[in-house]
């Protein structure tokens, strides 16, 4: 065994409820999710000695540690690029624990984007992408930036809005099975999708994730320690970050080859250190802030060839019983958009056999972070 392969495991997960508006503030939600995850693991807060979070997280490590009563912390990490950092929190904790820098790690995300302001409306704040080349021309929001790539993708490969609908529908169908999802009991039809209002053509309302209040957390320990925990371990089999050469954040069109994004870079490392291949992945949780990120990711992570991501979604491939059941809690499109952390916890549920849309016998799961920004990904196994 080398590196971090199966050296650590996720042994606890926790979450608050998800809604457009929750009365409690972000710090309170963070505390609740972290304590729920530790309780799930059967580990006392005083044993925690490592933390990992990612940028755009407003709850400070110091505040969290004091509020819930952690022990002395010997490792804390904050990964850049917002939603691109979700999986990297687990990766950093796994690396730290495998290297002996810590023993019990907690990662979390707390957000009030359902009831709070949207970052792009604050024009005084310098955004991560070089705004002088985009914002004066009215390219203002993440949806506009990704729609530019999506239009070219549709043009270049003959992908269609029906392919994007397949993504939105798979997520909605799984959310319809998940009582915790914001879109529980709210079915989506093709007619609703095709007649919905535009956000940024070619992206319509249902191509965009939900704005959600909520928090989640998970607990990472060594494989050895995991054997004594309350729940069956879900092993961190492989992990990677990806910031490819020439990459430009959301506006990857300043790259020679804009339609190959960070997924490609993360995937090369991820598979190099794995004992299995994309053909062996039973279920996937793919970051879905916008539907086009899914076909782009399917290509980047090697589930199909370049330009084939749209066609891959046909014939129910992303539905339960299909080739690659997708975002089985409903994802960012229909469960909750909590910067992708719900995808990590849903991956754990699948490998524990406790998902509300359980893939029978699921033994391997890919989880990815935001595509379109410097990203990260995990291969989990039970």
């Amino acid at each position, binding site marked *: 065994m080398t590196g971090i392969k199966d050296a650590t495991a996720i042994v606890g997960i926790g979450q608050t409820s998800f809604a457009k508006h929750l009365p409690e503030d972000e710090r309170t939600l963070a505390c609740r999710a972290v304590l729920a995850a530790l309780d799930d693991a059967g580990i006392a807060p005083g044993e925690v000695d490592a933390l990992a979070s990612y940028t755009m997280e407003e709850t400070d490590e110091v505040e969290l540690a004091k509020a819930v009563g952690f022990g002395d912390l010997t490792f804390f990490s904050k990964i850049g690029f917002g939603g691109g950092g979700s999986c990297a929190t687990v990766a950093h904790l796994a690396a730290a624990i495998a290297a002996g820098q810590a023993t019990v790690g907690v990662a979390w995300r707390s957000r009030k984007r359902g009831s709070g302001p949207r970052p792009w409306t604050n024009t005084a704040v310098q955004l991560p992408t070089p705004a002088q080349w985009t914002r*004066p021309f009215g390219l203002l929001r993440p949806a506009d930036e990704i729609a530019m790539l999506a239009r070219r993708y549709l043009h270049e490969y003959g992908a269609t809005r029906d392919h994007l609908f397949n993504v939105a529908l798979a997520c909605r169908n799984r959310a319809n099975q998940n009582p915790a999802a914001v879109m529980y009991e709210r079915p989506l039809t093709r007619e609703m999708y095709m007649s919905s209002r535009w956000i940024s053509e070619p992206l319509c309302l249902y191509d965009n994730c939900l704005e959600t209040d909520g928090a989640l957390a998970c607990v990472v320990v060594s494989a050895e320690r995991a054997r004594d925990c309350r729940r069956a371990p879900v092993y961190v089999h492989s992990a990677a970050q990806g910031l490819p050469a020439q990459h430009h954040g959301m506006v990857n069109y300043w790259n020679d080859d804009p339609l190959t994004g960070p997924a490609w870079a993360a995937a090369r490392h991820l598979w190099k250190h794995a004992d299995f291949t994309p053909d062996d992945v039973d279920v996937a949780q793919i970051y879905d802030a916008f539907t086009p990120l899914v076909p782009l990711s399917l290509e980047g992570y090697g589930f199909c060839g370049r330009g084939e991501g749209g066609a891959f979604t046909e014939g129910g491939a992303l539905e339960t019983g299909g080739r690659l059941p997708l975002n089985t809690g409903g994802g960012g499109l229909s469960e909750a958009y909590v910067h992708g952390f719900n995808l990590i916890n849903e991956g754990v549920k699948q490998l524990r056999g406790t998902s509300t849309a359980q893939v029978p016998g699921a033994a391997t799961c890919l989880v990815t972070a935001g595509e379109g920004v410097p990203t990260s990904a995990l291969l989990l196994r039970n």
Partner: protein
Amino acid sequence: MLTPVTDADGAPFWRYAARGELRVQACADCGEPRFPPRPCCPHCRSFTSEWRPTSGRGRIWSYVVPHPPLLPDYAAQAPYNVILVELADAPRIRMVGNLVSEPGAPLGSFPPDQVRIGARVQVVFDGDGLPQWILERP
């Protein structure tokens, strides 16, 4: 409308634009153009650069049509097009802009449903020195 908040690397672009010139940064040693402007050449690591004039011609690589909710000034013009132009002189340089009906016209002046990928465009400048694009052959 949001005015460009420039930085040290980008300021020359806007100074030339205010004079009605579309120039791109290029390495003064190996000649590679680069965008957005940066202090160092990623090909030869030279710190010397020049601002090379362009023909101001290009082709539309992609486009979007934003709809509200948007910032107030932009919502008032929506739906409008935002295009991405591949420069004829440096095809790997792509610039965000707007296709307008004539120089100085508002963002929504060109019908969004008539924008096409591959269409040939020519740079013009509005009264504030902001680059805009018109069809090369209307």
